[in-house]
């Protein structure tokens, strides 16, 4: 079913009775060419691109709960490609380009809104690092724009320029950055994949891998055994848990990241703004809520909830740069589990087990990566070779000494 204004008009006039399920609810078949574990944004995108770009059909996506119940449904909806290192920036820039055409591509309005992202800086050293990053973005074909404090004052007069503990010295804009209606991304990919024959199987938890003679031949699930020629793990947040079933230890820790939304407000924020001297980033949703977050809670956790110190730390950051939000009320907070990797960068790679593939370690960069992650993982699965923009996202990079450490904090996941 193709969605359009006309379709809405026709349905509206006939009592909205003709809408069909956005994806089917099939029972698992005994065997697939490719089984993707994880019905989140990345898993569904992988299925979508496998069918659309690589012409594969016999694919299942297995989801433990309901699709989109992981981090694609729990993030702060930001998209951007303002990375610095060669291992990352071309990948994220490709992702941003995919976002730009996504809705027309899968005929679903995910409200991709390129309202800009602004990273504030508060010191000369920070400015120098931002310039280096901005120039790396240019070299990778992305956009960036440096603004000084006066420009920012004109554009964003509500920021605290006069009484700040860490005065705003300027900021780095990426005007093409912005936000996306996160749930709709999962639904749009699911709809597109389903339409091309992918079986999306909800309430189907993987309980084990069928690995014999060094080759993965399928999975055990709560809905029975499913054979597969290739098994693609795509469960960021739970990577440790799932890969443990395959007997693998990862360069990953699971951490909880909280996110917050206020009550609905009339428009106040034009785009995404991040604080450079504390932990706070914010945007405003189309519904009017200020959606914001900060740092991870900082300890290993698989509980999708956080604790008070971080809530307060994030609010402090918010008040430090925009004290006009003091009377806006925090409405809801939630937690998502992050695959915090050892250098803050992800993995899209084969594993030592033949037929078993791994996608994870997204830290809190996963949402913006969704399209590129799906496309690159699909590329790897279809061709058994990494996509050109994802060649460095390998599991063995630590052994080789090739780090992709944007923040420069080393092998301590909770600092990334």
């Amino acid at each position, binding site marked *: 079913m193709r969605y359009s204004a006309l379709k809405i008009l026709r349905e509206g006039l006939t009592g909205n009775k003709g809408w069909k399920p956005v994806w089917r609810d099939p029972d698992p078949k005994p065997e697939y060419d490719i089984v993707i574990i994880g019905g989140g944004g990345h898993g569904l995108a992988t299925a979508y691109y496998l069918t659309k770009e690589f012409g594969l059909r016999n694919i299942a996506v297995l989801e433990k709960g309901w699709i989109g119940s992981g981090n694609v449904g729990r993030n702060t909806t930001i998209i951007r490609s303002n990375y610095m290192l060669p291992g990352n920036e071309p990948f994220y820039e490709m992702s941003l380009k995919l976002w730009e055409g996504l809705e027309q591509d899968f005929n679903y309005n995910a409200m991709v809104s390129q309202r800009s992202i602004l990273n504030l800086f508060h010191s000369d050293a920070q400015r120098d690092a931002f310039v280096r990053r901005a120039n790396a973005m240019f070299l990778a074909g992305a956009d960036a724009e440096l603004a000084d404090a006066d420009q920012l004052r004109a554009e964003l007069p509500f920021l605290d320029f006069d009484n700040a503990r860490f005065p705003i010295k300027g900021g780095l804009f990426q005007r093409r950055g912005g936000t996306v209606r996160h749930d709709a991304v999962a639904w749009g990919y699911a709809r597109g994949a389903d339409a091309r024959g992918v079986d999306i199987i909800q309430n189907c938890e993987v309980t084990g891998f069928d690995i014999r003679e060094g080759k993965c031949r399928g999975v055990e699930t709560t809905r029975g055994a499913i054979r597969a020629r290739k098994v693609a793990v795509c469960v960021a947040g739970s990577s440790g848990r799932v890969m443990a079933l395959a007997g693998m230890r990862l360069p990953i820790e699971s951490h909880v990241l909280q996110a917050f939304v206020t009550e609905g407000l009339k428009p106040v924020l034009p785009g995404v703004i991040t604080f450079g001297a504390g932990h706070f980033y914010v945007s405003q949703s189309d519904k009017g809520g200020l959606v914001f977050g900060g740092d991870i809670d900082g300890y290993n956790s698989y*509980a999708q909830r956080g604790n008070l110190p971080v809530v307060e730390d994030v609010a402090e950051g918010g008040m430090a740069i925009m004290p006009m939000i003091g009377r806006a009320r925090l409405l809801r907070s939630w937690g998502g589990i992050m695959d915090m990797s050892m250098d803050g960068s992800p993995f899209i790679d084969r594993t030592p087990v033949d037929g078993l593939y791994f996608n994870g370690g997204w830290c809190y960069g996963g949402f913006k990566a969704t399209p590129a992650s799906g496309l690159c993982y699909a590329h790897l699965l279809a061709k058994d070779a990494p996509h050109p923009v994802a060649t460095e996202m390998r599991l063995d990079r630590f052994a080789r000494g090739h780090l992709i450490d944007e923040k420069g904090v080393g092998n301590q996941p909770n600092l990334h």
Partner: protein
Amino acid sequence: MIINHPLLGPRDAAEFVYLGDAALIDRPDWQAEDAAEAFHAYGYLRDNPAGVHRELWYHEQGDRSWLVVTRDTVSHEITAVELARDVARARGRGR
């Protein structure tokens, strides 16, 4: 969270800084044959369990002791708190 410090009693976890898996105490022998591999595993690979986890916390805003906290990563329940120095010695670390 509250960490029941073995010497000081219950303290808000906000006084502490988290490091990670208590296996970080078990620093490999730099002269071993497989030192490169051992240090790679030590530095980069983690059990990351969903359940009981022994982990290192530092009482930065307190007595500056490193602690080994046994905590469930799903429920956050803490079942033991020990001085890391004692744990390290018990695991054979010395000079």
